[in-house]
């Protein structure tokens, strides 16, 4: 999925500055959020294709996106509508870490094992962030669709996180086992539970 559709969707909801759009994207899309620069670039492209325009300015491209409020054009709204009904693409199934595991040489495995810990830590941090979000929603008032939609997406993300953590643990154990076996009995390390 490209940043363009996400930014356009937010602009349709409410015209905003580039900086604010990047912030809203972060709040709404969490791990799918793009960097601020990517948001500005998307705004550039959207302005060029006339999907958005700067409020009160004829030529959006010449303005600084950070201080310009963008609104969606009718073309942009149509485009977003047709994207919404396009068949959603399957996500790429391999992460960079998986690619590294496939291409690693044995002496690089200890480094990759450390990398799995770092990734798992990120998963745990992400879970905590999701918990904070969930608690904020629960303590709020009546539910609206964006709230319920976010809840649903949060649930999907937790399932992904769980799978991810399990895969990282499995990868780590397997790499360690491989190292233990190929290193010979003299350098055997204590076994870990699990």
């Amino acid at each position, binding site marked *: 999925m490209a*940043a363009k559709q996400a930014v356009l969707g937010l602009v349709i909801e409410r015209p905003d500055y580039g900086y604010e759009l990047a912030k809203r994207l972060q709040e709404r899309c969490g791990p799918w959020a793009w960097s601020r620069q990517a948001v500005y670039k998307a705004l550039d492209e959207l302005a060029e294709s006339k999907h958005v325009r700067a409020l009160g300015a004829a030529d959006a491209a010449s303005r600084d996106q950070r201080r310009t409020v963008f609104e969606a054009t009718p073309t942009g709204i149509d485009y977003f509508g047709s994207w919404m009904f396009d068949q959603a693409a399957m*996500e790429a199934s391999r992460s960079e870490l998986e690619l590294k595991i496939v291409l690693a040489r044995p002496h690089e495995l200890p480094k990759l094992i450390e990398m799995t810990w770092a990734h798992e830590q990120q998963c*745990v941090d992400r879970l905590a962030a999701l918990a904070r979000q969930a608690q904020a929603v629960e303590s709020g008032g009546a539910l609206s669709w964006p709230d319920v939609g976010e809840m649903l997406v949060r649930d999907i993300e937790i399932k992904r996180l769980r799978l991810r953590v399990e895969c990282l643990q499995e990868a780590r154990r397997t790499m360690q086992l491989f190292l233990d076996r190929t290193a010979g009995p003299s350098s055997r390390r204590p076994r*870990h539970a699990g």
Partner: protein
Amino acid sequence: MSATGPLLSLRQARKSYWRGLRETVVLADVSLDVHAGEMVAVWGRRGSGKTTLLEVAAGLQSPDQGTVSFQGRELTAGRPSLARALNREIGWVQRNGPQSNGMTMVEYVSLPLLGAHSPRMAQRRAVGLLERVGVRDCARQQWDSLTDGERTLVSIAHALVREPKLLIADDPTANLDLLQRAEVMSLLRAAAERKDRAILLTVPDMPEMLNAHQVGSLSEGRLLLSRDDELADVVEFPRRERSA
């Protein structure tokens, strides 16, 4: 203990078992703080050492290395005076039910109070607690007639009746359906926040962690805890969707 210090604190705790010449490390260098009013949930696969972590935290097992402190005092397992103190201050949610058959749930929940209170007073408190956890209807029933969900709630009432400062629960949501899990977790969270009580529990699945103040993952003896800052909200992860 300072007013802001953690109620429970594990510092570089290590625990391993020996099978013949082979050492199995269950906890390697685990550090953890649980504060009053806070619920900490730890997830791990079966056999990842979750129960050992809870037993070490409760003072039921001593770590091979490192320290465990409760209210600023270091715990050493096996000291009888300490065990008595722990019995009052640390509650453990046990889902085995009463030892003897024929006991009603109000009798079971009031059991921990009988030394210090009259049976009538103990039962009154037990009924109040059963009501608070939402299973007042089970008061006159026996363990065998309860559903898994009711058993869990009764077990929580049994653990809470003495008003422990720290409550420990080992997979309290195991075998429960989605709604029961949500109910148990929000009940526990309320029990932490309302009474400034610390709760340390393990969970069989991750959605339960959404109710916790702090979450952790235990594997290969290492406990990864969520870092307590807002940075995690803006962490760029995972990135692969972006390039797809």
